[in-house]
């Protein structure tokens, strides 16, 4: 067993896990942050995307102990302080960018990472960036619309 201490959504957390535990398992099983989903076992689907030290990471691609001391952000930390939906989350609801909701946490976390790097992405750039996030429900069309709308809102606010 290893003891892992990290910061998740601004709060420091410590828990023991097996050395082979993945970060995705640690978040779900040890910290009960079940918003991070696991949709595959080959690091393809992107349902488990979180931010580790500001970078979008598929949390199934690293061991929990590799996140020792890291600053992790998950879908549970994306809402505003008053509990209302954040800009990207709100855009996903407004534009029907989700159906079953399973890929959605990873999509939102990837979208946030994209917009941090590129505040005004083209449709092509959005589709290209989302290549590592699979959605089976939406055909991606309204996800693209949602991200474009969120980008516009975020640009207008700065």
């Amino acid at each position, binding site marked *: 067993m290893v003891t892992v201490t990290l910061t998740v959504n601004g709060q420091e957390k410590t828990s023991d896990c*097996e050395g*082979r535990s993945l970060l995705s398992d640690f978040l*779900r099983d040890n910290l009960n*942050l*079940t*918003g*991070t*989903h*696991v*949709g*595959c*076992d*080959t690091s*393809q*689907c992107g*349902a488990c995307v979180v931010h580790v030290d500001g970078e979008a990471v598929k949390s199934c691609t690293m061991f929990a102990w590799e996140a020792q001391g890291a600053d992790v952000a*998950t*879908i*549970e930390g*994306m*809402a505003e302080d008053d509990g209302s*939906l954040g800009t990207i*989350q709100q855009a*996903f*609801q*407004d534009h*029907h960018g*989700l*159906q*079953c*909701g*399973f*890929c*959605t*946490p990873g999509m*939102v976390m990837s979208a946030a990472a994209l917009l941090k790097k590129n505040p005004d992405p083209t*449709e*092509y750039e*959005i*589709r*290209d960036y*989302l*290549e590592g*996030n*699979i*959605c*089976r*429900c*939406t*055909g*991606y*069309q*309204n*996800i*693209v619309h949602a991200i474009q709308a969120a980008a516009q809102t975020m640009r207008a606010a700065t």
Partner: protein
Amino acid sequence: MPKDFGFGASSKRREDVRFLTGNGRYTDDINVYGQAYVHFLRSDVAHGTIKSINTERAAAHPAVLRIFTGADFASVGGLPCGWQVTDRFGEPMKEPAHPVLAQGKVRHVGDPIAAIVAESAAEARDAAEMIEVDIEELPAVIDMRAALDGGPLVHDDLETNLCYDWGFIEDNKDEVDAAIKKAPHVTRLDLTNNRLVPNAMEPRVAVGDYNSSNDESILYTTSQNPHVIRLLMGAFVLSIPEHKLRVVAPDVGGGFGSKIFHYAEEAFCTFAARELKRAVKWTASRSESFITDAHGRDHVTTIELALDHDGNFIAIRTSTLANMGAYLSTFSTSVPTWLHGTLMAGNYVTPLIYVNVKAVFTNTVPVDAYRGAGRPEATFQLERVIDKAARELGIDPIEIRRRNFIAKDQFPYATPVALEYDTGDYHATMDKLEEIADLKGFDNRLAQSKSKGKLRGLGLNCYIEACGLAPSNLVGQLGARAGLYESATLRVNATGSVTVMTGSHSHGQGHETTFPQVVSEMLGIAEDQINLQHGDTANTPMGMGTYGSRSIAVGGSAILRATEKIIAKAKKIAAHLMEASADDVEFSDGTFRVAGTDKEVAWADVCLAAYVPHNYPLTELEPGLEETAFYDPANFTYPAGAYACEVEVDPETGKVDICSFAAADDFGRIVNPMVVDGQVHGGIAQGIGQAMLESAIYDEDGQLLSGSYMDYAMPRADDLPSMVVDHSCQTPCTHNPLGVKGCGEAGAIGSPPAIVNAVIDALSRGGYSHVDHIDMPLSPHRVWEAIQT
């Protein structure tokens, strides 16, 4: 002006808030105190005899609670098939046993041999590696023709790999044969409808729990229809009566058909929890999903279309081999028959049709319904052969379709394949398609593509589907072993809010928003005063679940009926409060009024009176305001439409780019246009996936080569075009009270032929007119090869 609430409004989905904040509660998010974990040891060969299973070392693992093998299930029932098909000769289909854990033989890669229950999932996996299984490998049969042509028997006791040889309508066969023989023109096409893996993003999960204090079993499972699972598992597998078995399907991360069926893992977890007096949890890995979730499609077909010289259809004859896999999954047998053969008339007047289907056992994962289920297979062959015929006869592909359309004034229209279409207007949807796809601008776009050295093509097709499954008395005659009604309970609370309980299940469709829209419209109260409960056999009435685009047509109609009962009773209460006759009471916008007077009473006051009956007609009416309705549809519904696709083909590499996709659908009346757009987008994406990317490929030994997301090409964001969808053509369904038809499967049914037609068109225009068909998926390699030959 668009409405902002009620029927027809694009209300934002209330369920989104929990999904967007990580607060969804999917089955894998459910953990029961003290739960153990199961790992299934699965066959890695496609066919073999189990000589021995040595669990001694594994059982000694300190974390292992118990190891189960087939011997533990020798006296437990097998997984039942829900639909008995009768063959051409009046004989019932061959129905092999489908054990929970393999009994003596394994029949596909992924067949479960042993189940290891341990304190953690990781330790269960560790222990599984210590089990020694001696399997004598037998030759496997993967190809359907080989299976019928003396190949190894999947089930020795059946003495054949033929499940059934179905003819539809058998009495018409000779007439169809004769008509085709003497027809002026016959177009023939051999094609494959490629095998697909449904791949809902949430892998399947089951948590079995047992409450020894009241002898109740609880199963949490990733299901589209918890009541159906309770029925099948309770009655046929584990012999647990309904009142001792609760099945919960909480948030479910997509289904597309694959989560209709009753699977072995559900029965195992429920069984093991009773044995161990501890909850037992199973979470599929994606690799496991690929080799255990029922696959879809997998038909090999020859279709012949007979026409006169003017392109009028005379007769259709089609012959299909349909892969069942190694066992009969829950609804597998109905898919190539009643959900496929009955759709062969399409949108057209064709006097004579004969459909033959041979269902075949092979050493592969069972095949069952996947979004569209039989209807995509019917549409694909029909719309491909029509395009080929148009080319052969030199008739424009739109013109040949229009020439044969069932005209608006012919409805209700009885097809020669047993359906009666209630409404439709196929010229209208084609007109709309021509507009939204900007077909007038095609020549310009063709020239632009040409200037870049690309071959451009335009493909289109129509589709019709039979949805809203299904009239129980009809499907009973056809072999269904269940009724296909739906039920709803409306519980009006004392303060006027409403809880709607439905047997339909939402796993992405947005029912929690759209069903309250219907009730809101009828009661005139705000949508947020109405809450939908679904997915739990303990607190919803008996229901048949969600598949076959049935939820709004059947489940929604049950909700409408229950709401009507509520209104009828509430009027009587209101009449008492206003000292009037119930016949004189009118109800609108949440207020009861006595006609012709200024007397009125508000909805909330009537609700309160029902639960605090101090001033109440107690001698005539029971207190309370709660009603249940069952709705059994009188007919299927018939959504229909026309789809167009434009592609560019690179003749150097064979790579196909989808430039545009347009869909004009007629879904009848629409509750929430935003949700319908999303359903069509998703369906088309799966159709594009089938046409361009996806294929479940087995090698000759029965190993699934495309068994992960590294190998199975799921459509990604950059594989798909921006789609134009329109559902303004609306011919309301005539036999359900909402006038709705259903929209969930249309995109997946209607899109594959448009894409293949477009590629063939591009090749033809580019000088490769010798290519009259390419099987899906249209990979660069296949297209390039077709160009070269």
